[in-house]
């Protein structure tokens, strides 16, 4: 070919095109447009972002500081509470026993105020102290009734009752 001018050629599109090409493209584009409309994109303004970050930093700092000051107060309170001398084992045992006896009193059970019914506790220095138990004196009438009641049992019945009764752990330990 010696002489050739492309300007004289017919402008043709020679590539194959699938069916419904533009319909498909339009449908896909419209689906995307609708999806974008449903989920709007919020553009972040830098000024707002900086302001929000600062507010967050100050907020967190304030909360942490208030927690620290509260913590100090709490720790002081705890220190004040802990500042009391620690109770010894014997003191604890005495308090437990005392509360047990109080509960007995509350149940309207009466104990004769005898010399034997003294509660003992031992101090740290090993000195033994007695503490008088303030209990109500049992009336003579009730005592007589109880004796009569007990006398109505035979020895074997009393032994059986004794075997069925449970032992009080504290009384067992400290008496």
């Amino acid at each position, binding site marked *: *070919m*010696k002489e*050739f*001018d*492309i300007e004289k*050629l017919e*402008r*043709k*599109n*020679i*590539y*194959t*095109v*699938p069916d419904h*090409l*533009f319909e*498909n*493209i*339009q449908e*896909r*584009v*419209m689906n*995307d*447009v*609708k999806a*974008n*409309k449903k989920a709007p994109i919020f553009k972040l303004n830098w000024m707002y972002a900086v302001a929000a970050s600062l507010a967050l930093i100050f907020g967190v700092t304030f909360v942490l500081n208030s927690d620290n000051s509260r913590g100090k107060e709490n720790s002081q309170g705890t220190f004040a509470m802990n500042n009391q001398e620690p109770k010894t084992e014997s003191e604890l045992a005495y308090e437990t026993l005392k509360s047990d006896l109080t509960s007995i009193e509350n149940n309207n059970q009466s104990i004769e105020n005898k010399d034997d019914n003294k509660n003992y506790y031992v101090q740290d220095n090993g000195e033994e102290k007695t503490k008088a138990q303030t209990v109500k004196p049992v009336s003579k009438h009730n005592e007589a009734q109880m004796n009569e009641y007990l006398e109505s049992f035979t020895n074997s019945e009393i032994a059986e009752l004794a075997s069925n009764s449970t032992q009080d752990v504290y009384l067992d330990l400290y008496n």
Partner: protein
Amino acid sequence: MKIKDAEIISLMQNPRTQEKGVRALMDAYQSRLYWHIRRIIVDGDLAQDTLQETFIKAYQNFHQFKNDSQLYTWLYRIATNEALQQVNKMKKMQKSDEDPEYYMQNLVADNTAKDAEEIQILLQSAIQSLPEKQKLVFMMRYYDDLPYEEISKIVDMSVGTLKTNYHYAKQKIEEYIKENYER
């Protein structure tokens, strides 16, 4: 065309009529943009995806469109950028030992209709042998008959450079066809 563009712009700028505007935009420009993209990419499926992406970008960035330029110039700019990005991806994915020019010419042969004339196939192959800028200028001038001033806005080149590029592109294509035409 000018009045139609004004209508499309007005529809696109109103959020209530935006969807209608997108449809009008596609109806008006889908064919021209498709063939512009297809001549650059050659592959049919990728050209379809690229056109779709062009319209979505046009919709998403319509607030950036300024009335001082023509609507089709703006759309051609988006389409050209999208198509060139796609070509770069294709070139990266191809085998390292294969010549990119040879790869594009094979793609032309695979995508042409059975009844296509030999001279038309040679013309497409010759276009694919051109450097990128010459290829773009030649296609927009030869097939779309765009004025140099508008092409200048699309590819960011001066009118003088565009005219020179077109001249060299035409010369190379004619030589290619003369060498390869068998009849």
